[in-house]
């Protein structure tokens, strides 16, 4: 929808207000209600206990509660959308969000607040589970990397989300009671809001990407039948990303009138995040070396992930670089960059993981041919959509523009065309996944010849996950133990 509107420079389809509400809801819904919960809530909740050999998470009731909270939060957001929408952008910058916007900021903020609690509780549950519920013999360095990635993610959720929560509470108070903590008319500082907001929202990017990285580590290993190269480096790089991710939020504020020195410090620290990210990419690539590589659908997604994440990550360096960032911040360059990370990274990881574990979750296989086709369509559509936006950004096209000067039109048309291809790519899996639930071939307990504990139990798993808690005697990804059991996929 957004892309169609941007086909023409003057925007005939909607009014500016509608456009502003659309991109705000797109941001809010995608980030807070899809990307942040997607992998942890769907794949994590299901497989984390399985992978460490536990019967369930440490607090199943809290887990249920966190699901209800997410639904309630979602209802608030939907209410806000139906009641008239909200037009502040997902960033809720003050004083626009507190004083000037006449839209449903409060309902949306409440929705995010509630969903935030859901996220905190999920993180809390995972940390405790990983610390205390591992099966006998499942030492820290025998854990699958998916679990490591979730551990790092949970740290961020637990430490970062409360700060967003309190920020939203203050926004809420400011709108309802007019107490004005960020109100410049009283001497308040809107830049303080940005600090509080990005303290959460920068690490939140890693909440989205880390679980996807965990998925990719699993996929690369299984489909090349080799242990991940540099296991401990990949494991620790997850934690390093989580920790360093908290030190760099100020790179969103280079032109926000934050002090020059703070800009220097944040830019410097930002480059440290690049290192663990680079380590991961290099190690994944090295894992392929002398492997036994098969090209099932999840592996295609894994390749797509590495490619897109590499581009997304490297363009991140541009944004961390003070001199360049001044020019490209708040332009389509940023839009392209974070879509490469979030869509190219997080969603590719999610789809890869979904395909990989689909047989385990449902006991059915999906149609391989269609799946490969859609993986290809998504990859091409994605690049066509977002690559032109890098160029647009460097040309100076600001983000969140409903109308734009005509010289940018060609690139916008390309991008919109890409978006249509991308949409087709996303619709295909929805159709065949539903189809497979009924008509898919019945899956064996271990169709891929994988090593994780989740494959040592029937598909789908029984209520208590395992008939008998397994005892772990090998490192993760020791394929000598499973190779004999490989069963042909129907």
């Amino acid at each position: 929808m957004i892309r169609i509107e941007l086909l023409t420079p003057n925007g005939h389809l909607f009014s500016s207000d509608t456009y502003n509400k659309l991109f705000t809801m797109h941001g809010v819904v995608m980030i807070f209600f899809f990307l942040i919960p997607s992998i942890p809530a769907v794949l994590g909740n299901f497989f984390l206990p399985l992978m460490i050999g536990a019967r369930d998470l440490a607090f199943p009731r809290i887990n249920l509660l966190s699901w209800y909270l997410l639904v309630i939060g979602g209802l608030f957001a939907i209410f806000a959308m139906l009641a008239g929408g909200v037009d502040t952008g997902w960033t809720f910058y003050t004083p626009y969000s507190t004083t000037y916007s006449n839209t449903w900021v409060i309902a949306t903020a409440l929705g995010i607040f509630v969903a935030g609690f859901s996220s905190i509780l999920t993180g809390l549950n995972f940390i405790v589970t990983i610390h205390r519920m591992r099966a006998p013999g499942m030492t820290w360095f025998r854990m699958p990397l998916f679990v490591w990635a979730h551990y790092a993610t949970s740290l961020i959720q637990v430490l970062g989300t409360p700060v967003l929560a309190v920020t939203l509470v203050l926004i809420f108070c400011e709108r309802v009671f007019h107490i004005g903590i960020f109100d410049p008319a009283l001497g308040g500082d809107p830049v303080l809001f940005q600090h509080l907001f990005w303290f959460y929202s920068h690490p939140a990017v890693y909440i989205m990407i880390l679980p996807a990285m965990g998925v990719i580590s699993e996929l690369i290993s299984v489909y090349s039948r080799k242990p991940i190269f540099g296991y401990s480096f990949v494991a620790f790089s997850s934690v390093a990303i989580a920790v360093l991710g908290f030190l760099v939020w100020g790179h969103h504020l280079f032109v926000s009138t934050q002090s020059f020195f703070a800009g220097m410090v944040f830019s410097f620290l930002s480059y440290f995040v690049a290192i663990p990210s680079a380590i991961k990419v290099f190690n994944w690539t090295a894992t392929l070396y002398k492997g036994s590589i098969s090209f099932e659908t999840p592996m295609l997604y894994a390749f797509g992930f590495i490619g897109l994440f590499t581009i997304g990550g490297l363009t991140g360096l541009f944004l961390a670089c003070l001199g360049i960032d001044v020019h490209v911040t708040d332009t389509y360059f940023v839009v392209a960059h974070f879509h490469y990370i979030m869509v190219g990274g997080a969603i590719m990881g999610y789809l890869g993981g979904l395909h990989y574990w689909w047989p385990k979750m449902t006991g059915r296989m999906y149609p391989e041919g269609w799946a490969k086709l859609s993986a290809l369509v998504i990859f091409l559509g994605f690049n066509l959509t977002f690559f032109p936006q890098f160029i647009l950004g460097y040309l100076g096209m600001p983000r969140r523009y409903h109308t734009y000067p005509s010289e940018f039109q060609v690139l916008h048309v390309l991008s919109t065309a890409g978006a249509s291809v991308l949409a087709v790519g996303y619709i295909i899996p929805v159709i065949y996944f539903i189809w497979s639930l009924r008509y898919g071939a019945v899956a064996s307990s271990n169709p891929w010849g994988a090593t994780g504990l989740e494959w040592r139990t029937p598909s789908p798993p029984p209520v208590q996950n395992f008939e008998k808690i397994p005892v772990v005697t090998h490192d993760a990804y020791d394929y000598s133990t499973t190779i004999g059991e490989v069963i042909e996929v129907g």
Partner: protein
Amino acid sequence: MASEAHAETLALREQFDTAAQQKDVATLGMWIFLITEVMFFGGMFLAYTVYRSSYPNVFARASSSINVYYGALNTVVLICSSFTMVLAVRGAQLGKRITTIVFLGLTLFLGLVFLGVKAFEWGEKFHEHHVPGPGFHLAGVPPGLQGQAQLFFSLYFAMTGLHALHMVVGAGLVITMMWLTYKGRFTAEYMTPIDITGLYWHFVDIIWIFLFPLLYLVDRHMGK
């Protein structure tokens, strides 16, 4: 939220192997939850730090207008309640039902005293036009700086308000614990919920320990 953290029953829940593991897990979960609370209040402490360092004089003046006796009284009341709470936990550890209930009752009473004093204090603020909003006025602060004084009171109400909200939740927990103890649900071996309620209560106390000097005691010597 916290009420869920100790919702296990006496029976060992199916996902655990041993009672020790179950207790350990619950305690760890509560501590992590408290850390999220630290970060939650941390955001406001940050806002406070920034504005106090920007407007030290106005903050001193505004702080001096609050009645220090209420603050000090409430601090002592809360410390007393923490003391009774720890004795209640001790009673539960020893398996003494009556002791536990009595001390939980005292804790609850002190908690309610705290909230009562707080309510009274807030009432006075409304009376004195010290509540942020169009009617705000703080005597002794020049007109151009009323906004900054209002910032102080915005923080005052936001921080004490959220703290009071936590107190209300805590009081609810204590009542639940009293009821469960009365029903004989706890033994010397299994009293994790009381233990965890205690942790929560003490945490709320700690927050107040910081709020008191930060809100009530800013350079009192200057404000006079």
